[in-house]
Every structure is written in structure tokens, then in C-alpha cells.
């Protein structure tokens, strides 16, 4: 039985179709990378998998069960930005999921129990290389460090399904390569299933065990906006027999405009 089972999934916003009859079966442990032009519904698809949005038609099953109607801890998420909490330090960002679990009412622990949590997450902080920065706030971290923190935070609840929405889109190429190593390592260790939306076709080939492309079925329709997107290519990637990791040049898809904030040293401001 497949782990993620998508059947005849459609999404319409006010009669404008976004996704049109998407079918997909993904076995547990797969690393699915999703590419497609801007506005083709790939982020919508991710939001559906997260239950942040509801489909107009069709069903998504996770491990044989219907998806719950709200986001739950069995599905982790990392966004391109705003994934971590700006008012908490690195350590506190990682302690938060454990506090939520153990202090059911207000989600806050004090004193010795809190100190015990700090020890508990020390290993994870070490793992993502933020030990020296553990008492800094996200605004004081580089983009790459913030995303490492976001990934670590999402993994603390040990989700079976991890959703990544262009997580490395705002990072320098060098930093991006480091992040690829990190996410592949974490994926191999945990055996979780990953869905990752990306604009970088090289990244999609490099990381995925399966690459799916979202596109409109017909481009020559009389009214292109009346046609929703669906999966037009579904490529299994046999990494072992294929090209060694890193040989495919990382070229961004040209429809993504250059973003001046794509800079490892840039420190996006805290919304104030």
C-alpha cells in the first residue's frame, strides 16, 4: 500500500481551476521533488498535503487514512521564510516543540525542567552547527543558519512526512550545497518521506528519488486560465545507477526573477 495516495485531486478558486484531477501514489521513504512554472499549483499541492487548504474535489490519504482537516505533528513543514519564531533564541525555538508537548496548558516550562530540555536539544543544535549561536535570535543568523534551524525544529516532532516549500530558494549556491548534504543525511537516517517544491531543476534531480512536474495539460486552450495544472511528468530517479550527486549544474529556472535578498549574509529583518 502506498504511503501517500492522491486520488482525482482538484482545487478551484472561484471557478478558476488551479489543480485538475491530480493522481499520485508515493511509497514511504521516497524523496519527491516537485518542479513547475510559477503559479502552476505546486505550492497549493503542498498546502493540501499539510491540510492548510482543503481540496475542492478528490481525496488525499496518508498511510491509508484520510488527512485530518488541520495541520498535525505527523507532517512537518519548512517554508522559504518565516519558519522559525523571531522572538525565541535558537535553543528556545528547538525547546518550544517539547514544551508544547509537555506543558499542555500554556506550553511553557520553567526551572529545572526547562534546563533539562536544553540538554535534550543540545545534540540537535550541535548537529546543525549552531552550538555557538544557540543563544542568538533568528534575526542575528544568516539565511542558511535560519533554514537549518527551521529544518531541525520541524524534525523534533519526528514527522513521517516532511514538506519543504522552496526551503533553499533564498540561499547562496555554496550554502545550498551544504544544505543538500544535511537534508539528505537527515532523510536517510529517519526514513521519512519528503515532498520538496523547488524552482531549481538541478536541485530537483540531485535530491529526489522521484521528480514530478506540474503543468497545464493544454497550453493551446482558448482560455488558458480555465485549465488547471496536473502532473505532466513523473520520473523515477535511480540515483545509484545514475549520475553521481553534484554532476548536474544547478541552474535556476529562468522564470524566477533574481531576488536581491538571495544572499547568505543578508539578515532579513524581524517583522515589526
Amino acid at each position, binding site marked *: 500500500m502506498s504511503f501517500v495516495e492522491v486520488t482525482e485531486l482538484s482545487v478551484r478558486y472561484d471557478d478558476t481551476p488551479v489543480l485538475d484531477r491530480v493522481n499520485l501514489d508515493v511509497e514511504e521513504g521516497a524523496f519527491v521533488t516537485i518542479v513547475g512554472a510559477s503559479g502552476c499549483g505546486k505550492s497549493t499541492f503542498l498546502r493540501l498535503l499539510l491540510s492548510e487548504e482543503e481540496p475542492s474535489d478528490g481525496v488525499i490519504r496518508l498511510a491509508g487514512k484520510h488527512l485530518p482537516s488541520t495541520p498535525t505533528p505527523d507532517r512537518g513543514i519548512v517554508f522559504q521564510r518565516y*519558519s522559525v519564531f523571531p522572538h525565541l533564541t535558537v535553543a528556545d525555538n528547538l525547546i518550544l516543540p517539547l514544551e508544547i508537548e509537555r506543558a*499542555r496548558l500554556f506550553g511553557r516550562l520553567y526551572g529545572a525542567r526547562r534546563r533539562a530540555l536544553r540538554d535534550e536539544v543540545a545534540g540537535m543544535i550541535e548537529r546543525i552547527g549552531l552550538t555557538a549561536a544557540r543563544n542568538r535570535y533568528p*534575526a542575528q543568523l544568516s539565511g542558511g543558519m535560519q533554514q537549518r534551524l527551521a529544518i531541525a525544529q520541524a524534525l523534533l*516532532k519526528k514527522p513521517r512526512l516532511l514538506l519543504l516549500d522552496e526551503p533553499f530558494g533564498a540561499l547562496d549556491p555554496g550554502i545550498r550545497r551544504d544544505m543538500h548534504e544535511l537534508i539528505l543525511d537527515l532523510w536517510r537516517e529517519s526514513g521519512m518521506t519528503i515532498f520538496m517544491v523547488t524552482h531549481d531543476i538541478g536541485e530537483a534531480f540531485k535530491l529526489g528519488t522521484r521528480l514530478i512536474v506540474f503543468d497545464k495539460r493544454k497550453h493551446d486552450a482558448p482560455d488558458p486560465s480555465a485549465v488547471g495544472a496536473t502532473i505532466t511528468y513523473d520520473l523515477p530517479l535511480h540515483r545509484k545507477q545514475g549520475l553521481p550527486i553534484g554532476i548536474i549544474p544547478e541552474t535556476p529556472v529562468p522564470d524566477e526573477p533574481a531576488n536581491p535578498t538571495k544572499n547568505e549574509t543578508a539578515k532579513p529583518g524581524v517583522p*515589526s
Partner: protein
Amino acid sequence: MSASSRKITPAARIGLGALPFALLVVVYAIGSHFRRLENPSDKLLPSLDTMASTFWRMATRPEPRSGDYLLWSDTLVSLARLGVGILIAASIAVFLGVLIGYLPRARATLAPFVAAISLIPPITILPILFIVFGLGELSKVMLIVIGTAPIMTRSLAQAVMDIPREQIVKAETLGASSLQMAFRVVLPQLWPHLITAIRLGLVPAWIFLISAEAIASTGGLGYRIFLVRRYLAMDVILPYVAWITLLAYLLDRILSFLSRRLFRWAHLSGESL
């Protein structure tokens, strides 16, 4: 180097900042000097000396009839009214602001109402307050509350709405309940905005305080100014105005300092006043 990018030293910054104040004092002193040349007992522009000695007297010598040190008793009474009013307004603003910003249903119900209330010129309802709450402390405090709570509520509701959707979704995936989300994600990010809202609310709050005290009161900074106005006692009024300004400035600075101290994360990028 263009004038807009030229850096200045800290000493120059203080000197330049003090310049307009010094200029004001000098202009006043000259004006006062010439008026008193014509009429030595001129009341309109008393000399700096007279004002200083009057102010000193009010601060250090008890008033013969009541035995009060007028400056301090006035200050205490006014600050108490201001503090209680702002405290109540801030509590209302946090409660309603979170409801409006966080829950779409509450927003639909309350946002238009709060917006409408915030447009009532508060002074126009001062007579109503006097009639309903009497001439005591309550009506003065209520004027400050009604004058500041709606705008503070709106700015806090906006601050809650400005919390990126991603953070709320992320908290849900971490298993947070609504209450946990309110206490760990929403409220902690609201406190620096609350301090900003209080700093902005204090500006109208002072106006309402002085107005209410001027109309019906037996003590307070506004009361004193409007009382001695009858005797053209500019040597009391002018120092009192300066004193009120100084108090307002210090309150603002203290709040700004507290925000930086307590919510360092909110002041990491960009400059702020």
C-alpha cells in the same frame, strides 16, 4: 561627500540637539528683558529668575493653607490618573486586539465598531462622562481610557494580523493548541507592539488628562495651570508646561528603554526612535 551621508560625532549630535532649545531660551530672555524695561512688573513674560524661584518654591515649600508641596502633589495626582487610565486602556487593547487580530469571527464583529468608536472626538463625550461618572476621579480616568483604547486596540490587532501565516501553521505542525499558540507565539510577539502603542497613546492621553483636570478637578498639573491662569501667573504656567513636557519625555524614554531591554529580539534590525 553628500550632506545626507555625512556622519556626525556623538558630541556634535548632543550639541546640535541642544541648539534649538538654547535658542528658544535666549529668544525668550531677550523678549522678557525688553518687556520688563517698559514695565518692571510685567506678568506676561516673567524673567527666568522669577520662574525658577517660583518653581523652586512650589517644589520645596508647603503651601500654607493645605500644607502640600504643590508641585509634587499635583504631579502625583496627575501621574496616577494617567497611569490608571493607560493601564486600563492597554488591558482592553490587548484583549480586544488579540481577539480581532486572531479570530476572523471576532474581527468581523468588533473591527467596524472599534473603528467607529476611535473616530469619536473624546472631548465631545467629556460632558457625558461627567454626568454619568460624576466629577470624581473615575470620569477623568474614563476620558483617558476612551480616548486611547480604540487606537491602541487597532494597532495591536494589526500587529497580530501581521504575524506571518507561516508561523501559525508551523506552530500547528508542532502540535500547539490555540491557547498554547496564543501564549507562546502571538502574545510574546505582541508585547513590543504594546509598548509602542502605549508610547503613541500617551500623547493624546496627556491632552485628555489636562483637559479633564482643567474643567473639573481639585488637584493635578492641569488644574494648577488653569487655576493660576486667572491671576496671569505666567511664572507658574510656563514652568509647569516645561515640567509636563519633561515628564512626558521621560515616560517615553523609559518605555523605549524597557522595550529594548525586555524585547531585544524586536530591536535587532533597523533604527528606531
